[in-house]
């Protein structure tokens, strides 16, 4: 099975995308972090876990463990997995395709080598609930205690202390011994290098938004968190991409586009193509942040502050229980920075978190006069529906 999506090589006007060594290297790196590749790594005896790939990834790497993004669970066979969730686990139909695909795929692959799961209790409730069901298939599921920062800096000391204690517990779970904080500090420094380079690439890309397609841009965001299991190689990829994008400065863009900001996760990645085919270019994207970890703090505290800050900013999404009230600030900043003419707010059908945030953003951007369209997709890989394409086209047409 190949989780690396086929990326369209032609643009809307039929022009071939220029060959990119950076993107080829990114795809090759993603192959090494594919579902099958990771299962092989685990079968060979390396410690691999589901989850732990987001804010906590420096700790996981410091425990000689590869964290795997849950996204892998719905890249393939998502329809079949969702059917298993509904039929076998009796998950009610109203819940989102993401959690159904997750639990279904975990069930199908219950005899595979990756049998440990790490999950953060502040995040998505349905995900927390389905992971309890995964225990029936022999998965060892650990929950990081629920610690939410409802407002920046509020009750910070107690929250940090709780998270530090939890991170120590998770390290013991992974390795059977106390955490090596020096190694965590090294991993934090490494991840900060990755984050800085991803931010640099995204800033360059904002000037040439059609150069790196949406699906591969999403890959960059995810890589900023988990580094594809090989942060040094990812850094090389980012350097190559930065060079290629820098070389484009001063070269006239041959395809006209309407600059847009995309907010949120895109389940059905074919939507990227629909946006581009309709004449849009995603110049900015609020998805996973690029804020650095504070290297001056003790490393476990640094991780704790990182996630609590992200929650308060509305960053890193429902996986960390980010606030629904503040993401619009990030989106508005991105609109200003990129000169975008409109915002596409994207979510997964049936996601309470995203639906509420979309509504708040709809109200807010209407007030400030920035056009916004809210889209919902599932995680399946069929092409977007005619209705979705028509809405995207109409929105972009309205902006042109």
């Amino acid at each position: 099975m190949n989780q690396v999506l086929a990326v369209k090589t032609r643009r809307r006007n039929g022009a071939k995308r220029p060959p990119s060594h950076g993107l080829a290297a990114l795809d090759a790196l993603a192959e090494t972090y594919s579902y099958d590749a990771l299962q092989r790594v685990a079968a060979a005896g390396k410690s691999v876990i589901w989850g732990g790939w987001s804010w906590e990834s420096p700790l996981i790497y410091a425990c000689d463990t590869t964290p795997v993004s849950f996204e892998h669970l719905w890249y393939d066979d998502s329809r079949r997995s969702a059917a298993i969730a509904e039929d076998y686990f009796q998950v009610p139909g109203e819940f989102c395709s993401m959690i159904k695909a997750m639990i279904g795929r975990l069930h199908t692959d219950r005899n595979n080598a990756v049998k440990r799961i790490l999950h953060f209790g502040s995040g998505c409730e349905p995900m927390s609930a389905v992971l309890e069901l995964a225990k029936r298939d022999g998965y060892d599921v650990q929950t990081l205690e629920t610690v939410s920062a409802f407002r920046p800096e509020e009750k910070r000391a107690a929250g940090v202390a709780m998270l530090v204690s939890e991170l120590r517990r998770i390290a013991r779970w992974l390795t059977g011994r106390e955490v090596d904080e020096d190694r965590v500090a090294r991993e934090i420094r490494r991840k900060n290098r990755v984050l800085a380079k991803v931010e640099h690439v995204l800033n360059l890309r904002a000037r040439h938004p059609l150069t790196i397609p949406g699906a591969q841009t999403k890959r960059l965001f995810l890589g900023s968190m988990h580094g594809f299991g090989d942060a040094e190689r990812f850094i090389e990829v980012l350097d190559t991409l930065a060079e290629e994008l820098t070389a484009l400065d001063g070269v006239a863009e041959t395809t006209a586009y309407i600059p847009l900001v995309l907010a949120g996760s895109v389940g059905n990645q074919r939507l990227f193509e629909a946006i581009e085919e309709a004449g849009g270019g995603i110049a900015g994207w609020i998805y996973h942040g690029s804020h650095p970890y504070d290297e001056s703090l003790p490393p476990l505290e640094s991780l704790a502050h990182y996630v609590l800050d992200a929650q308060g900013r509305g960053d890193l999404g429902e996986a960390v229980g980010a606030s629904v009230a503040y993401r619009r600030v990030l989106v508005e900043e991105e609109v200003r920075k990129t000169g975008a003419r409109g915002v596409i707010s994207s979510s997964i059908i049936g996601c309470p978190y995203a639906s509420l945030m979309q509504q708040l953003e709809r109200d807010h951007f209407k007030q400030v006069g920035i056009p916004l369209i809210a889209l919902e997709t599932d995680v399946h890989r069929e092409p977007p529906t005619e209705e979705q394409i028509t809405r995207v086209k109409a929105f972009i047409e309205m902006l042109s």
Partner: protein
Amino acid sequence: MSAPTLSEHQPTDESLSPDLRELHALIEAERAAFVEGGDGRKRAGYFCAYTPPEILDAAGLRHARLFRAGSPETVSNGERYTQSVFCDFSKSCIGAFDRAAGAADPFYLAVDRLYAFHTCASMKRAVEVIERFVPTVLLNLPRLRGEAASRAYLAAELRTLRDDAAALAGRAVTDDDVSEQILLYNSIRRLVRKLSELRQRADPPLTGLDFLEIVRGFYYLPPQVALEAYTKLYRRCAQRHQGKARPARLLIAGSIMADGDRRLVELVERQAGARIVAEDHCTGLRPFRHEIAEAGDPFVALANGYLDQAPCARMKPLGDSLDAAATLAREYEVEGVLYVYLKFCACYGVSKLAFVERFREEGVPVLELSSDYSVSDVGQFATRVEAFLEVLQDRRAERRQAAPALAQEYRQ
């Protein structure tokens, strides 16, 4: 859309046993007084059964649990923010506070401060909207019942609650003040448990509707008033002679059953003639099955006591919630379980298979019902409940027939 009044969607005198009418009158008077105010005391509200009223009383606040819901108008009010993918309870919580939308609840609007624990993610999200309408303090509720660090963390959150409640009330709250309330609330919980245990009789002197009214009393009445009312009620009910009726004994398990969401219980008891003898949900018996340690640091005691209570399905591990539900089914010798979850309730919707299987392991049949606050499903509920009760009747008859045969086999 008409705004619901205080009396709408409430149990009426007619739906309650005569013994409960006095309690009902006290509750309604207190609810009206809460709205009127005028006593100079600040009013606090909370949603979740994990909120310790001991602390709010120690601060001298007038307080109430905000769990009145069931009106489609209020749900629709909340949908302005949530679209459709939240449960109707969380939508109602938003709708009841949104004065601008036209179906707000005066009881909710009377609240000076909302104390909201991060229970399920949907309620947390709802509260992020509600804090636009009312000053709100958000608090963390740990999930990991077995972890010492989680207990210490909850104790710290409860001290935050103490500090805010004290500031709101304008007075200091000492440990002794809290300890005193722990003693008082333990007495009340013991009485509520004893009242519930009367339902273990073959012909229970209390209906399920009666017990839900007792729970309303706990969440609306000042504790001293509740204690006196329950004491009198227990004396009366305990002395009542058992009749010959042997109604089918049912447990309701699952999502919150809001004050105002009485359709199913009325259908089961008043139309179908069965009896709800226990509830594994957070507005029934579940929050009363624990006691708080009366010695030592009161905040540690509260943290331990509340985390040790029969857990909501959002707590971990889920197995603890299943064990608590199964124990209740055994203790109350239930013949069947109505597993009722609100549409979009992740805690009880996604976990339903685990609960249903656990009850079946106990040999108890389960009827699973997915519910909301619309009125469109009443007919379907009636048909399904009646069919379920027929199955239970058949099982009872089979057992009766099997009993002499088994006795004879034993004698041989």
